């Protein structure tokens, strides 16, 4: 059994995940809709997960994948809690435009 | 038995007072403070008998901090001052009603604990901890139980707190630097660490800032008058009677021996600071309208002279300074108590509202007069011995120092007698002034007795402190 990376190369995974990550960052900065912001965060998480798996293969080690599991668990929890917060914000403010959330202004 | 027992007693006392409830608090606090006083007498005895009363235990390994308490003559005498004044101060407040008395008295004992620790600690960081710890209770005492407008009080007290804290921070920096050099916070190691001139310069002024604010030496005194005025009298007594002496003690214990070259170099400047304080404080005191503020400025003047004595770096100056510290501690407590006695009856501290008390309260007038005379250092009072010795040591350095410092004799008499005249003398006051009660008399009589006993026979104190001061000077001049 050959290593799949012989065919594709670890760099390409790196680039892919970098691009995905940057798209996530861009989404967070660009959009005002909190749900889309959340989705962008998910994209960033996935970019990292992808890199984990790629390196797990590279090192032929299961530990990378184990971390992906944990990361998924955290992501799931985060999304659940985050969306719940969003729902309650929506209930209170009638909008989820992040520009309206300026209570942190000093 | 060693000195840490004393600390434990005071700390336990603080808790016990808190849990005793508002009604019993003052009595429990008095009991514990008296026990502490008795204990410190016992410690003195065992020290005189040559027993080892120090305590040493490593506390934190890295950085190396030891729970190290050492008592020599100097520490012991300051200890005695603290433990003797604490019951007196507590007892003096017996006729006052305080809200939440349990916290009040617990804080007093806690403060006493912290100050005792400061006088005993021989590890730099431990000392620093006690030093800062003593600030917390007085902050609350002044803030919560103080008098006058709340906003102004808050302003004054917060200023005091932050100001002294900021000063101490420089001391902490100095300690950290010393630790880098010496690898230990223990005082003996700090004494032995080799420092260059420039290093000594920085460390010296860092220490100076902390102590100058605490003592206070002008121009770092601006917190003092307001806080004295706003704090409850008990707080003022604690501040002026004991806490100021922490700064002076620290000058002798920490600043001078650690930075000998700098101390010798800046000797004239520092004496100048002290004497400027004497003159400035006396002159400002002349025109104060508030009795407590006047006493605050008089305290500034006296403390300036003590500081000048500390910085003379000769045995007379040091001994005089210590004697004067003790004398000033008692007298200033007495004077503030006299102000409190008037306040209890007239509800005012404005001098202009007083006058004509003497014909109504002859007993109080006599006791107050004696305190005033002690404060102006009449011979046979304890203050005279201190003042004379300090002035003598100043004259050894330069006769002009003695002359300028000696203006305290004239100006002190001027503002104190002027105050006494405006407060006590004149046509009988229209308002009734009940003469001093038993409690009040007892407090004043104890203070006066101390003033006269040691004013006539200071030898026990001399014998106790002289070896310790000699040791400091030997360290200072690096004589083995």
């Amino acid at each position, binding site marked *: *059994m*050959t*290593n*799949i990376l012989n*065919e*594709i*190369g*670890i*760099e*390409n*995974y790196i680039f*892919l995940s*970098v*691009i*995905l990550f*940057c*798209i996530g*960052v*861009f*989404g967070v*900065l*660009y*959009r005002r*809709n909190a*749900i*889309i912001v959340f*989705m*962008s965060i*998910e*994209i960033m998480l*996935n970019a990292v*997960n992808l890199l984990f*798996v*790629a390196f*797990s*293969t590279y090192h*032929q080690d*299961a530990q990378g*994948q*184990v971390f*992906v*599991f*944990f990361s*998924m668990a*955290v*992501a*799931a*929890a985060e*999304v*659940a*809690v985050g*969306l*719940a*917060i*969003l*729902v*309650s914000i929506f*209930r209170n403010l009638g909008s*989820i*435009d992040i520009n309206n959330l300026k209570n942190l202004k000093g | 038995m060693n000195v840490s027992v004393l600390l434990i007693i005071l700390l336990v006392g603080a808790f016990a007072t808190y849990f005793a409830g508002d009604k019993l608090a003052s009595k429990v606090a008095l009991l514990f403070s008296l026990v502490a006083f008795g204990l410190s007498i016992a410690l003195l005895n065992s020290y005189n008998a040559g027993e080892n009363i120090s305590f040493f235990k490593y506390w934190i390994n890295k950085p190396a901090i030891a729970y190290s308490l050492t008592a020599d003559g100097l520490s012991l005498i300051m200890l005695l001052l603290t433990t003797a004044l604490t019951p007196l101060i507590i007892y003096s407040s017996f006729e006052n009603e305080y809200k939440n008395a349990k916290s009040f008295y617990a804080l007093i004992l806690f403060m006493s604990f912290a100050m005792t620790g400061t006088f005993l600690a021989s590890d730099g960081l431990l000392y620093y901890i006690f030093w800062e710890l003593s600030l917390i209770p007085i902050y609350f005492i002044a803030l919560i139980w103080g008098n006058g407008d709340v906003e102004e009080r808050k302003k004054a007290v917060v200023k005091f707190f932050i100001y002294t804290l900021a000063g101490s921070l420089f001391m902490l920096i100095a300690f950290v630097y010393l630790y880098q050099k010496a690898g230990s916070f223990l005082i003996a190691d700090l004494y032995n660490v080799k420092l260059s001139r420039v290093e000594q310069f920085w460390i010296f002024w860092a220490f100076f800032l902390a102590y100058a604010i605490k003592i206070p030496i002008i121009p770092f005194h601006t917190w003092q008058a307001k806080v004295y005025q706003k704090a409850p009298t008990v707080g003022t007594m604690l501040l002026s009677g004991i806490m100021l002496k922490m700064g002076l003690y620290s000058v002798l214990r920490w600043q001078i021996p650690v930075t000998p070259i700098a101390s010798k170099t800046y000797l004239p400047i520092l004496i100048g600071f002290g004497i400027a304080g004497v003159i400035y404080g006396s002159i400002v005191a002349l025109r104060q309208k508030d009795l407590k503020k006047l006493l605050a400025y008089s305290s500034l003047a006296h403390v300036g002279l003590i500081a000048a004595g500390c910085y003379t770096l000769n045995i007379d100056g040091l001994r005089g300074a210590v004697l004067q510290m003790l004398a000033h501690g008692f007298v200033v407590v007495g004077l503030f108590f006299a102000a409190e006695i008037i306040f209890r009856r007239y509800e005012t501290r404005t001098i202009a509202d007083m006058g004509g008390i003497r014909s109504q309260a002859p007993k109080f007038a006599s006791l107050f007069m004696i305190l005033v005379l002690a404060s102006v250092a009449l011979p046979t009072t304890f203050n005279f011995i201190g003042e004379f010795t300090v002035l003598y040591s100043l004259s050894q350095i330069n006769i002009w120092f003695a002359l300028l410092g000696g203006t305290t004799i004239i100006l002190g008499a001027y503002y104190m007698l002027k105050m006494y005249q405006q407060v006590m003398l004149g046509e009988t006051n229209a308002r009734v002034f009940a003469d001093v009660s038993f409690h009040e008399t007892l407090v004043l009589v104890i203070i006066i007795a101390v003033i006269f006993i040691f004013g006539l026979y200071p030898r026990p104190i001399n014998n106790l402190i002289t070896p310790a001061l000699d040791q400091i000077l030997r360290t200072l001049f690096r004589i083995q």
Partner: protein
Amino acid sequence: MIHIPDFAHASTIQIVFCVLAFITVITAFLAIFSRNPIHSALYLVICFFTIAGHYLLLNAQFLAIVHIIVYSGAIMILFLFTLMLMNLNKQNEVHKPRITRLGAIVSFCLICIVLILVFINSKPIEGEYIATGEDYQSIKVLGHVLLNEYMVPFEFASILLLVAMIGVVLLSKKEKTEK
């Protein structure tokens, strides 16, 4: 040293990778840019599927399945439910001011350039990709690792999920402020 795929002589795997990668990036972009949040969510689902494809490509079958279950199956459904709950599909999002968008684009470019340059210049240790032939990512092995070495974090993860669950229930419950 960048490994440029030789498209003329590309192997099947390489083609599959390129296609998958292309879809991933495009759908990610679309997810961000589409006006309608429902569309965004659907694009994102596709994106996640392609990522699962990458996992499969890397021989991590279990992970791919879990990924599909968790992300596409749970998280995205949650998103869709929320969107429908809020009835946001019609909501027209007001565009951000130009300066904000400019800032977003600048930072996007910046982070892209920085990261890519860093990775390019980081001079990875050149070497043969090892293939020990050992089984390291079957369910059996993973389960072993997960429940031996990482047992405590595993349990903590479960607690985390439990706590999240409770928290969500509490958060989304209607507050009884009217009393």
